[in-house]
């Protein structure tokens, strides 16, 4: 489908010989997945064909190709790819994979892997959006749309920004946008609960 991207990765570095291989790292990411390991992938391309984002031509590497790149150890190309950040979590690939690989879960795993290492492709809205969201929930326990808007609005060009502002204004007039952030009642308990999992403070 995407022939230029299909050939671009082959020229760069060969698989590195680290203490733990990239394939192993990814395998570890999926330790809890109930699906089959990606070593069982037969490269049939059902995932890519069934993916509404890949088949629309929006991903630089299709899901099938991401699996091939992981198995060949092309770590950098994988981490810098937009594929998993453009996954909408529709689970069509997971349901249809003839080898029973949980591909959507692999995409989640790759998102987390690149967030922790801050090694994702630059200019993506996804990582910033997700991190802002997490911080917001840690503070209040509930979601509040206007905070989130700041994570993407400034990446837009003027026409898109105006369109977005127009949509927001109409929603506001219809009473569909919150003016004040909601918060849960037992917030102190909630925060202590979170610190149990992530011992970071606020």
């Amino acid at each position, binding site marked *: 489908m995407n022939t230029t991207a299909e050939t671009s990765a082959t020229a760069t570095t060969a698989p590195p010989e680290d203490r733990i291989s990239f394939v192993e790292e990814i395998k570890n990411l999926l330790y809890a997945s109930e699906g089959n390991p990606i070593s069982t992938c037969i490269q049939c391309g059902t995932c890519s064909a069934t993916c509404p984002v890949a088949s629309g031509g929006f991903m630089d590497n299709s899901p099938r190709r991401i699996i091939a790149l992981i198995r060949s150890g092309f770590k950098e190309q994988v981490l810098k790819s937009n594929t998993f950040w*453009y996954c909408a979590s529709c*689970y069509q690939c997971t349901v249809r994979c003839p080898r029973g690989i949980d591909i959507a879960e692999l995409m989640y795993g790759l998102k987390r892997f690149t967030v922790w290492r801050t090694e994702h492709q630059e200019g993506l809205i996804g990582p910033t959006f997700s991190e802002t969201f997490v911080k917001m*929930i840690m503070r209040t326990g509930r979601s509040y749309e206007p905070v989130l808007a700041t994570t993407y609005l400034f990446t837009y060009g003027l026409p898109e920004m105006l*369109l977005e502002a127009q*949509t927001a204004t109409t929603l506001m007039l219809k009473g569909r946008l919150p003016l004040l952030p909601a918060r849960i*009642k037992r917030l102190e*308990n909630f925060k202590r609960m*979170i610190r*149990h999992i992530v011992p970071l403070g606020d």
Partner: protein
Amino acid sequence: MKKYAYFPGCSLEKMAHSYHMSALETTRALGIELEELEDWNCCGATAYFHVDELLAFTLCARNLAMAEKEKRDIVAPCSGCYKNLFFTREHLKHDADLAEHINEALAEDNLHYAGTSAVRHLIEVFVQDVGFDAIKAKVTKPLKGLRVAPYYGCQILRPRKAKEDVEQPRFFEDLISAIGAEPVDYRLRLSCCGGALIITNRRAALSMVRNLLECAVRSKAAIIATACPLCQVNLECYQKQVNHEFGTDLNVPVVYFTQLVGLALGIPPKRLGIGSELVAVMPAIREAIEAEPVVAST
């Protein structure tokens, strides 16, 4: 009267308030009670799972533990909330270590998770617990002649492999038939609306929304019915942006299934939150709801 622990989720507080209103109105009319879970917290949406899975499971487990305390099953009207709660429960069932770790954290809020409450989507409660016959029996204003495109979206169906109806579900069509409307068959009824990509990859999401809307309109749907606030917002509130981006002329109303059920039960549109849409609903439904009420079936 069966009672459930109702988990509205963040969207239903404002953005999808009409879903909240119509969910409460219709369930009451159908003889079931949704009691809002006290002090529920955000399910983590997709974003939390992008950053830290353990924390995301903990957020969901807190809600599940509170429902257990009330000895009720938990009902989510949002497909995203439903999926997160459902899979947290599945994971904790199979991973005792994870459950133990999360329970240590939950103790900070004097809660304990045991896995005794089931997780249900609101449409499941209508279809499975109330049932088509009981719904039909309460219909006073069948929506005759209204062509409705049932939009399933993703997460009420996938990724539950064990369920046989993942690829060919019919329950949404049957629900539409039960209220006297006409379900429209269209190819993309199970395709993704773009979800959170509407923010993180606007162009991709708009193009997915466009495909979906055009497909439904080509099949002569007068209205689209959804079972998820994010689907509703993407399909409805972004129609104008789709038109701007692709030069299309789309103008199809998108409502929640509870709003249509409510109309058929004779509940006034206003009490179902109709009127807060960006694409007007009344022109599409006027004819159906202003027909003479049926006295008895022939």
